[in-house]
């Protein structure tokens, strides 16, 4: 796939996502992940293990999620995605005690994806942060991610309305973003 057609694909997916298509949104996130991983692993290679790169990948994905309202749908999504990745990778490494790191300004569309043999690698940091959530939120997060239940199934299991589960999930993700930020500020 060429850089231009990839950018066009991602832009289409995110436009559909912002119009309320959650399937397109999932597809978008899955499509971007290998590229984020590629950048993260390059930065981590001289510094830490693969699990750490996966921590960074998840932090970047969360930032994309929480800040997607700042993307202007009339533009292509490549430069925006690249800017989020760059900003968050700097934050992630700063939190790990590196004062200054250089993240070269590379076009995300020119990066080669890194997806091989990484699907079994899990992240550790997110697990610790999710553990700081309050109980109903933690249970919802666990049910949807680790147990693979849908929002509907989770609602039924916890005897909550679907709307309440969605609100709670949204708050949980915002809290997660704040927990990451707190770690960066302390440094």
């Amino acid at each position, binding site marked *: 796939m060429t850089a231009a057609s990839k950018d066009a694909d991602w832009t289409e997916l995110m436009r559909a996502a912002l119009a309320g298509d959650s399937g397109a949104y999932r597809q978008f996130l*899955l499509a971007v992940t290998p590229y984020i991983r590629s950048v993260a692993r390059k930065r981590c290679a001289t510094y830490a293990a693969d699990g750490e790169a996966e921590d960074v990948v998840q932090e970047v994905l969360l930032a994309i999620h929480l800040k997607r309202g700042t993307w202007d749908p009339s533009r292509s999504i490549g430069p925006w995605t690249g800017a989020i990745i760059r*900003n968050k990778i700097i934050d992630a490494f700063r939190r790990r005690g590196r004062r200054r790191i250089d993240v070269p300004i590379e076009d995300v569309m020119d990066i080669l994806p890194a997806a091989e043999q990484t699907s079994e690698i899990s992240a550790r940091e997110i697990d610790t942060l999710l553990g700081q959530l309050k109980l109903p939120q933690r249970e919802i997060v666990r049910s949807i991610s680790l147990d693979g239940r849908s929002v509907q199934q989770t609602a039924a299991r916890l005897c909550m309305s679907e709307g309440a589960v969605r609100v709670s999930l949204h708050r949980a993700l915002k809290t997660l973003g704040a927990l990451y930020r707190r770690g960066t500020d302390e440094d």
Partner: protein
Amino acid sequence: MVHSIAGVQMKTDQFVELLSGDAAPPRTLQSVLILAGAGGAASAAALFFAAIGFRPDIAEALGSPRFLFKFVITLSLAITACVAAARFGRPDGQMTRKAFLLVIAPALLLCSALVELFALPESQWMPHLVDHNARFCLTLIPLLAIGPLGCFLAALRHGAPSNPGLAGAIAGLAASGFAATLYAANCNDDSPLFVVTWYPMAIVLVSFAGYLIGRRVLRW
């Protein structure tokens, strides 16, 4: 206390499932900034009409080009800074292409001051420049800017600025554009020589406050 949610670690595709469960479209930064502009204008106007008010000779002043040109300058500052805030609140907002926008208001101000230097005899320069309202200018503009600055900073927390301090400073510029517009309707010093001397001092003060607060609260 820190728990592990499952003792099992989360894989990234499981995390993606979690994120796509929260797929409801978010508010756009632009819509939040428009709300902030309306809220900021309302709060500053409320303070203005409650405590400050128009100058007594407002009806005659409306016929004076010097009086009216103050609004050309302050409104162009308010508008260009709002556009810049929408730009710098985004992670891919670049200094390069839209930066010329922020030059418009200072350029208008400097031109008007130059014209005034030619229009007035030299003996009149200092009286027009110093005049009696300088102290009000330096206190009322920052005071009127507090509400709008709070609104713009709150809105930019929905943003993702690559440079939080800069985004905060631009929020300060936009807020002082609103404040200066209202203050100009109260102040009876209309000479561009007065405006060019005192207004920028007040505006820089507000922007610097925006910079300091932005560095702290606009990180994401």
